[in-house]
């Protein structure tokens, strides 16, 4: 196990800026947002919990130009790839879903595929939990186990460093002077923090009686006609925030506009809670009611994805809970689905 001091970590990021646009999570009030790296200032928080915005935004952009005219070229900009620091385990888990969607099937999305190859992920353990965290219920530990290049476990005097890919290993090996042997005490400290965070998430799960994912099998189908949906959707204002903020929500719309010289096609995030999402010609809508669209969101995450990809499309990150202006709470809905006979 390797160790890096705060100072040397600053040097590492500075060095990585040559090849990458480096983003670090910064704290503002109660939230953390990714910001371009500008030194390890006081507001940079590598540990803590997940950022406000989902990690998918760096790989599957909210708005991406995907075609220009009839040119066969893939419209890649000249920008350097992105290095994201401080990504959390729940967001890394979402790659399993996003990879399935964008890299799978007969066609790969060239933009997502390239971002996955070129971007660098320096993830980090969570150092505490907030009350919306329930990752463990979805079998996600609050510290990264996979899908990172380098992982950091925050310590008082720096970070414990683990590598998870060839790219990560090469970066560490190529800058050996920045790293030292971690030693046993630091490893013990890390394990202690991890236990602590696990305990905090467990407490969240117990207090809110959130079902474990094993109890979710068939729960949506069983409750397809239940009144739960209409009941829960009563306060929904159809903003689509639950969709856009979710690290696994992947739906998009191709949107054309007239460019300067030719047409431009954009791939923009879409949201299945919005009325027109499934509307077809002549105005017919298979999901005309809000509650049907709320149900659709849960059907997709807890029925469709387990059947087609063998995994639930929820990481327990809790973002949709904090983002919903209507206080619609996925934890409460899952509980109702499981408890309803």
């Amino acid at each position: 196990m390797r160790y890096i001091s705060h100072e040397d970590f600053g040097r590492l990021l500075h060095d990585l800026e040559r090849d990458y646009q480096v983003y670090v999570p910064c704290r503002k009030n109660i939230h953390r947002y990714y910001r371009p790296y500008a030194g390890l200032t006081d507001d940079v928080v590598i540990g803590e919990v997940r950022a406000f915005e989902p990690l998918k935004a760096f790989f599957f952009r909210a708005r991406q130009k995907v075609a220009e005219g009839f040119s066969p070229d893939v419209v890649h900009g000249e920008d350097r790839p992105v290095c994201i620091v401080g990504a959390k385990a729940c967001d890394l888990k979402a790659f399993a879903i996003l990879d399935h969607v964008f890299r799978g099937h007969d066609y790969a999305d060239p933009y997502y595929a390239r971002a996955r190859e070129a971007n660098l992920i320096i993830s980090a353990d969570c150092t505490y939990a907030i009350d919306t965290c329930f990752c463990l219920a979805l079998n996600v530990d609050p510290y990264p186990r996979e899908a990172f290049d380098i992982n950091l476990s925050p310590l008082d005097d720096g970070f414990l460093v683990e590598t998870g890919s060839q790219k990560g290993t090469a970066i560490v090996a190529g800058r050996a002077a920045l790293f030292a042997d971690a030693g046993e005490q630091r490893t013990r400290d890390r394990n202690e923090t991890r236990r602590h965070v696990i305990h905090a998430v467990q407490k969240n799960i117990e207090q809110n009686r959130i079902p474990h994912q094993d109890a979710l099998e068939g729960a949506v189908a069983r409750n397809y006609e239940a009144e739960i949906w209409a009941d829960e959707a009563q306060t929904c204002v159809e903003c689509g925030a639950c969709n856009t903020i979710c690290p696994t929500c992947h739906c998009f719309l191709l949107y054309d506009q007239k460019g300067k010289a030719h047409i431009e096609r954009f791939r923009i995030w879409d949201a299945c809670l919005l009325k027109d999402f499934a509307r077809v010609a002549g105005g017919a809508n298979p999901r005309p009611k809000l509650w049907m669209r709320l149900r659709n969101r849960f059907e997709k995450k807890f029925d469709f994805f387990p059947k087609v990809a063998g995994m639930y499309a929820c990481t327990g990150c809790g973002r949709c809970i904090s983002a919903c202006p209507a206080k619609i709470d996925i934890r409460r809905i899952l509980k109702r689905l499981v408890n309803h006979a």
Partner: protein
Amino acid sequence: MRSGMNPYRPIGAEVVDVIAETPTIKTLRLRPDEKINFRPGQFIQLTVPGVGEAPFTPSSPSTWKDCMEVTVMRVGKVTEKVHQLKPGDIVGLRGPYGRGYPLEAFVGKDLIVVGGGCGFAPIRTLMYVLLDQRSRFGKLIFRGGCKSPADLLYGKEMDAWAARRDLDLLITVDQGDAGWRGPVGLVTGILDGIDIDCENGVGILCGPPVMMKFSTRKLLQLGLREENLYLSMEKNMSCGIGKCGHCRLGTYYCCKDGPVFNYTQIKNFPDIWG
């Protein structure tokens, strides 16, 4: 990156002819810059530059070399602009996408093809293939329904097909007019008397959801087997390649797993006719 690597880009296609079929339906003959090989039942995405894209099923024989036709009903934003296109205009095409009709599964069997409204488009392509290879199949029955005689598509083909002795064709209209001598009423009404081998007969349905719902029910009542029914399902689509999430139908995406489905694949999903 190489051509063909960008699944979102359309190729150019020139509009070479525009045929007004009915007051709301036009057929466009297009000549794509690169050949698009499609199978009956597959669809393409058509771009009107600067306006947007919409999915359509080619309605021309899949054997044509340089051109393909799409038959488009004017219903909204994109289709409105499609109707304004003139020969010489350039549109974009992506595809073909999805799975077409499993023709091999039809060989040696009696076939009943049921079409309604604009559902005639994919069926025209299929009919060309079936008639081309007529001897490979058993009886061939076509039952169509549309609003009024003025809404009937492909008048020329229909006349030619009606004259064929190896095709039992009947069209019904919701509302007749002075010159109409055919049946009046829903398409389900003209399914009753069909003479078909129920054990092996294959039903192929394409049209508006209500028409498909009741025609499916009817064919099952007549004794056709669930596993011998094929339906073209229409869903909102954007990407056409199983990524955008718009066209989900149960555990499938209509664009990549359909649009033609075997009835047994989808019958247990809730609200399939929605």
